[in-house]
């Protein structure tokens, strides 16, 4: 790699958000380095199902941002000059009780007003849309007809392919060990392969953000949990048309009852015919890539409850990645107070859907120092440091009525 070590902007983290920022900044003519500790998409971005979801948006402040970003997907393939596997697809969340529906009522009253269809479907309608769903004990479903799905890898590489042509320096296997400071100003990063300097450093580091913040006295209150999933062989005995999730779940102890893994069904069929299956979530600060010994079992078990036919499907791979959660459901997005030169773009709920807008916002911030596109003040990183340092715990239904975020 023949580059100097000085750039206009250094982006840390080659996930879907970092790749989008790299694309937008290089398009605007900046000299950019994208620094990644492993390979592209080695964190949560490479582990997700590529859902372009607007129905799980944080409803207080995030709707304008999500809608803007969501619309970009209609033209994104044309803009990037390649297929990213984008399709419009409905999202169906299976309910087994009325109380599960009651939990979604706020959402159902707000989302349709802003143009995101979201409604209750009785069991007979569910059977029409997805005939293979096990009807036993089904109360109905929440239905969001206008969602989407991309191939998350192609989305990242769609951004990178263009960024590459626009002069991006992609520096993989460069782990950031520290920040380079001049007084209170961030002027670069010290990596395992040497020092890099820039006017601005952008952290698009999701689950690794907190660890990096602690190096410079910032205790951003981002919680990590690991999300696991699996994929089957192409399976022609079943065709499903929606993203199907369950409100029901399985709890399984990993270390003990205090450390339960909570598994819901989340199912979608790729355009090639493979099934992406289930989601097992477990809180914890561990950032490695090893799936727990219980996750493959719980994911298989919950999936066959709703789709018995999938017993005959063969699993070819399981995986896991640390993902993030903030107490208010909002990202840390914007300049870091009292540390000029440092900008955050971390912990989005649904990074895929936010990725285009994150690129636009960061480019405005780098270009002019403020953001015209929309009001990003609710996302100011420092807000999370004022909150109590809560620990995210799996909310057990055995103790209180609750459900997983979609």
């Amino acid at each position, binding site marked *: 790699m023949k580059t100097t070590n000085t750039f206009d902007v250094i982006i840390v983290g080659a996930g879907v958000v970092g790749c989008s920022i790299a694309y937008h900044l290089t398009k605007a003519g900046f000299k950019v380095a994208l620094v990644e500790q492993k390979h592209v998409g080695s964190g949560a971005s490479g582990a997700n199902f590529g859902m372009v979801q607007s129905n799980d948006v944080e409803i207080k402040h995030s709707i304008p941002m999500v809608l803007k970003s969501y619309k970009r997907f209609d033209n994104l393939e044309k803009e990037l000059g390649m297929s990213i596997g984008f399709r419009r697809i409905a999202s169906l969340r299976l309910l087994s009780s009325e109380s599960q529906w009651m939990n979604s009522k706020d959402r159902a009253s707000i989302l349709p007003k802003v143009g995101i269809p979201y409604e209750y479907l009785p069991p007979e309608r569910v059977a029409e849309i997805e005939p293979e769903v096990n009807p036993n004990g089904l109360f109905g479903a929440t239905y969001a007809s206008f969602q989407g799905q991309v191939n998350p890898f192609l989305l990242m590489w769609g951004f990178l392919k263009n960024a590459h042509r626009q002069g991006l320096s992609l520096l993989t296997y460069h782990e950031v060990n520290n920040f380079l400071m001049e007084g209170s100003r961030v002027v670069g990063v010290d990596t395992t392969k040497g020092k890099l300097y820039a006017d601005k450093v952008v952290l698009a580091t999701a689950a690794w953000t907190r660890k990096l913040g602690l190096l410079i006295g910032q205790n951003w209150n981002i919680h990590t949990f690991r999300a696991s999933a699996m994929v089957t062989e192409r399976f022609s005995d079943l065709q499903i048309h929606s993203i199907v999730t369950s409100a029901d779940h399985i709890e399984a102890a990993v270390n003990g009852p205090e450390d339960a893994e909570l598994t819901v069904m989340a199912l979608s069929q790729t355009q090639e015919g493979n099934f992406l299956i289930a989601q097992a979530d477990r809180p914890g600060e561990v950032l490695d890539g090893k799936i727990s010994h219980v996750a493959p*079992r719980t994911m*298989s078990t919950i999936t066959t409850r709703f789709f018995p036919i999938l017993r005959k499907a063969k699993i070819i791979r399981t995986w896991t990645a640390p993902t993030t959660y903030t107490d208010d459901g909002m990202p840390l997005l914007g300049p870091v107070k009292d540390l000029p030169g440092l900008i955050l773009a971390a912990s989005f709920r649904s990074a895929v859907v936010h990725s285009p807008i994150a690129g636009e916002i960061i480019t405005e911030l780098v270009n002019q120092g403020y953001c015209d596109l929309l009001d990003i003040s609710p996302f100011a990183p420092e807000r999370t440091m004022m909150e109590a340092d809560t620990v995210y715990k799996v909310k057990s239904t055995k103790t209180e009525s609750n459900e997983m975020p979609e």
Partner: protein
Amino acid sequence: MKQTELIIIGAGPAGIQAAITASELEVEVTLIDSQPSVGGQYFKQVPEEFNIHDSSSHQKQASELFNKLNNSRVKYLPETLVWGIFHNPKTDLWQVTLQGESCPSRIESAFIIIATGAYDRSIPFPGWDLPGVITAGAAQIMIKNQGILPGKQVIVSGTGPLQLAAASNLIEAGAKVQAVLECNQKLFIRGIHHLPSIWGQWRRLQEGFQYTENLIKTKTPYRIGWSVIKADGFEKVEEATIGKLDSVGNPIQKSYQKIAVDAVVVGYGLTPSTEFFRLLDVDMRYSKSEGIFLPKRNEFFQTNAQGIYAVGDCAGIGGAKLAMQEGKIAAIDVAVQSGKTSLTNMETTLNQIERKLNREQKFAKMLGEIFSLPDGLFSFAQPDTIICRCEQISLSEIKEAISFGAQSVTDIKNITRSGMGNCQGRTCGSILSQILAKEARCNPEDCQYLNIRPPVHPILVETIEEETTEVLS
């Protein structure tokens, strides 16, 4: 949960020897293998009806070992696939998950010796995915186990002693071997540096002579510096194009010859089965002679994962004898670590093994260097040649991914789906790094390696679901 003191995966020479040694030292052992009988590829037990000529010293050694195993207290699980190795934080043990007719679904233990051996290395060329183009290992299994002749008019192409063995077996079984093509030019020049290593390996040379004897008897041409370049045919192979190679392995077009065949047997050496090491994310190092990453090990062949050992060909190609010595040492270390014996007790034994080990390591190094692959072989593939056979990804698709700025084999996998299929890149993984290295002008070791995630083999949802688990609402 079923527990044992030591789990050994793979019942080839390394695994069997490790099981015997550990059991002699009072360690409770479970030996797991995917095949119906012990022996692995090296001591493959041939069904009697197909039993063709087998070198007797080899056979004697095998039956001695099998007898010892039968008379030991080793618990042996045949026809059992290991699909995952997990750490169970509750017990702080390794949990090995199994698939098979008569095995428990999980066993836990503090120690695992991985002895999974190696499989045929493949080189992509136009037509390599045609029916009738098979590896040397597959040809031997067809002849020895199934009594099937892969073809009547056969070209054997590749490098090293394994393809000679395959050619010899083919001739004995009645095939006409049109030619045996050895892709390495400087076989003898390279070999001379290693003459001292051959000292003490007379029995092996004898084996080599047995193979060549069959070639000489039937006047089978043995061409050094040649290779199959292309295979053609409608639905199955009908014609092979062979060509002479230049000093770095690039084919010389004007030398091309077409030969009518009904089978092409390719034997470009072996690739260690490193799946479990990548699954466990142990520290790896790049080995130039095998062209892949191998697990780093300490003097007792333990990896940096506590209690996980790597012995035999799966940790680097060294042959059966080296594998057995490694198995012995790892087993002794497990016995010491679990308090069954002490290092001082074992000192004399270890010293004896050490001497044999050194000799075998030298011989393995020689074979590795003589028969390492010239880079030019990776230029046989054409733009439309399929590189990833599971997902049907062509060379041109891989080159396009590289043009996006891909920097590692994982990047290529994520862009193209190459290596995302059932085999998780078993065949194409190392080929991708050769292509990327060539295109991006970097070293293959900079291209890293593909991750492995459970299940290591595809597994039915119904075999791991648990119907008794409570679903909460």
